[in-house]
């Protein structure tokens, strides 16, 4: 990656961080969970050019890569931004890769078989078929069946799509499963970010809540659990960064192993980390009033979206079993060094 790109990533991350610190948070999450579209926040996000950030500059975007996107998605997760921005960014990237200039506004990314986050709000919809054909549909006139995810409680809708307004073929390095893989990556990244927030809340609470005359965080039993949670946060962050880097180097199809690993590790981290954070918070964390659940419920939904741990683990496990024991270590070390020998 060039230094200019690194700089651009840094600037963008700082802007997103600042925007979400000011404008996002538990109150907005609650509003969105009632089905009210956070229009003002979306407008600000658009003003920063975020939806088209992954689109090449020639097509009106910022030309960022998947690794950059992962970093942005982690920030979205950490702030619990109640917007389907990650999916919109990925959809625009896939359109551009298929030679279609992405429209402005919210683009919903359809992952086969799954409900579409905030589909009702989309200006356009992107689908990818089994042959790697990307189709852009205008959303006007679509009959959305509205629903919501559980336990995430995010709006999630379904519709049938007719004739597209534009279509194009993805290059092989992105492949027919591009929507699924991008979806897995963006959910893993948002989990990694959300878990950071969850850990921070739990540490803060452990340092404040007093029992037996001292903060509960002074007890080793609590410390040991939070240390374990911190290890899960670190693992999730590394796994998604590695997947983003691999997708930049080898395309979404070539990064199958790393994306699968990221979804597995982030999914496991969501389970372990959320359980620890709730245990530390005890009863107050079980209330509607406390914001912890706004993050943990989302993580529980996100770990199931676009392939749960078991789905992705089976895939890479099957591939490794087929290759055999002698290839396991060479394959594990070769991906970022040379092409895997046959």
């Amino acid at each position: 990656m060039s230094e200019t790109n690194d700089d651009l990533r840094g600037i963008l991350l700082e802007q997103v961080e600042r925007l979400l610190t000011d404008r996002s948070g538990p109150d907005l999450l609650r509003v969105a969970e009632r089905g009210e579209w956070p229009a003002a926040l979306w407008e600000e996000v658009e003003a920063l050019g975020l939806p088209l950030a992954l689109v090449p500059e020639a097509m009106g975007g910022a030309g960022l890569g998947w690794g950059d996107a992962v970093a942005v998605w982690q920030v979205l997760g950490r702030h619990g931004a109640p917007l389907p921005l990650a999916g919109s960014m990925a959809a625009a990237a896939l359109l551009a890769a298929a030679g279609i200039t992405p429209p402005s506004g919210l683009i919903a990314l359809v992952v086969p078989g799954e409900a579409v986050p905030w589909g009702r709000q989309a200006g356009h919809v992107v689908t990818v078929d089994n042959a790697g054909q990307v189709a852009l549909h205008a959303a006007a006139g679509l009959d959305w069946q509205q629903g919501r995810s559980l336990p995430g409680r995010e709006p999630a809708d379904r519709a049938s799509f007719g004739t597209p307004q534009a279509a194009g073929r993805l290059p092989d390095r992105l492949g027919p499963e591009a929507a699924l893989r991008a979806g897995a990556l963006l959910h893993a990244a948002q989990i990694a970010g959300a878990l950071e927030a969850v850990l921070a809340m739990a540490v803060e609470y452990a340092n404040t809540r007093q029992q037996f005359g001292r903060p509960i965080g002074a007890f080793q039993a609590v410390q040991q659990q939070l240390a374990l949670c911190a290890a899960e946060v670190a693992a999730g962050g590394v796994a998604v960064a590695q997947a983003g880097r691999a997708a930049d180097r080898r395309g979404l199809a070539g990064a199958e192993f790393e994306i699968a690993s990221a979804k597995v590790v982030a999914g496991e981290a969501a389970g372990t980390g959320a359980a620890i954070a709730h245990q530390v918070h005890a009863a107050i964390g079980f209330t509607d009033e406390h914001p912890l659940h706004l993050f943990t419920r989302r993580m529980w939904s996100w770990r199931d979206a676009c392939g749960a741990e078991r789905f992705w683990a089976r895939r890479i496990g099957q591939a490794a079993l087929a290759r055999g024991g002698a290839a396991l270590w060479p394959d594990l070390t070769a991906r970022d060094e040379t092409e895997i020998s046959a």
Partner: protein
Amino acid sequence: MAGLRFDLRDTPATAPALRAELRAFLAEAGKDWSPMVRAYSWMGFDREFSREVGRRGWIGMTWPKAYGGHERSALERYVVLEEMLAVGAPVGAHWIGDRQSGPLILRLGTEEQRREFLPRIASGELAFCIGLSEPDSGSDLASLRTRAEKVPGGWRINGRKVWTTNAHLCDFMIALLRTSPVTDPRKKHQGLSQFLIDCRLSGITIRPILDLAGEEGFNEVTFDNVFVPDNMLVGQEGAGWEQATAELAFERSGPERYLSSLPLLIAALDDLRAEPAAPEVVGRLLARAATLRQMSLSVAGMLQDGKAPAREAALVKDAGNDYEQALPEKLRDLLDPIRTPPQVQEMLGYITMVARSYSLRGGTREILRGIIARQLGLR
């Protein structure tokens, strides 16, 4: 997160060629390694093998050539380490010298000590052990009592070290000893110093302690009026605690903290093909291995940049130990004892036993998590 960062690192451009060289060498050298040898790996001891590794330039790789080193990068060294561990090579005779005794001498030793020890460590001639734990001082290491008293021309040592891995086979020990008495229990970290001690000195008695597998792995080392000359003090008198804890970044950061049981997965994989539950279990193990490897590489990169990532190393070691301990249990669930080849079953048996040591050696799980908790801001 709370000051802990794990930036991605790439292995160096020389890695593929280096790996090819190592794999060819290890395939030949490892032809006859038993499942037990592979299960013990870096706790195992094979002096002839270590000499051969030294001859090939794979010990002291990052040290200056003037001291027998090879002036290669920390990440090239990392590649060598992980290739050795992935096949369970018996690297114990040079592991400690290469990992921490040599770097300590290079960093804080006198010129005389560097010239005396480093070339012989790098050639695989000199084997080191670490004298830290004592019968009454384990996790509370600073409470240690083995003392070195100043006498004309040197120091007189009395006391006892325990759990010293391979002391009965090693040439030298780097020991942490008390050189000033504790006057205030809150300041017990002061007054400690590090010494280079020839394991064959008069007054030293080394008694092997059989481990749970019946092997002579670790030892009790008794010092009875052992005289050590002045030039065997390492670094500064009284600064032993700071010196030893700085060493922990090296001791805890390597790939040996997550890879100890991976040879079992490699050995067992082909026999799992007919097991319907295997793909998911193997996939989860691989996802974690790939992630831990990146975390471990990240720490190696920090060391290469001259940082001392002690807390990051503690986190990766703890997560790695959980992984390498869980691996044999998960495979045991999949392997049918009747149909599994005896070689695989034997390695599973040994690793099941040896795995208990993973979360003890180099700092217990509880101590490591305490370090992470303090980093998080918990007191």
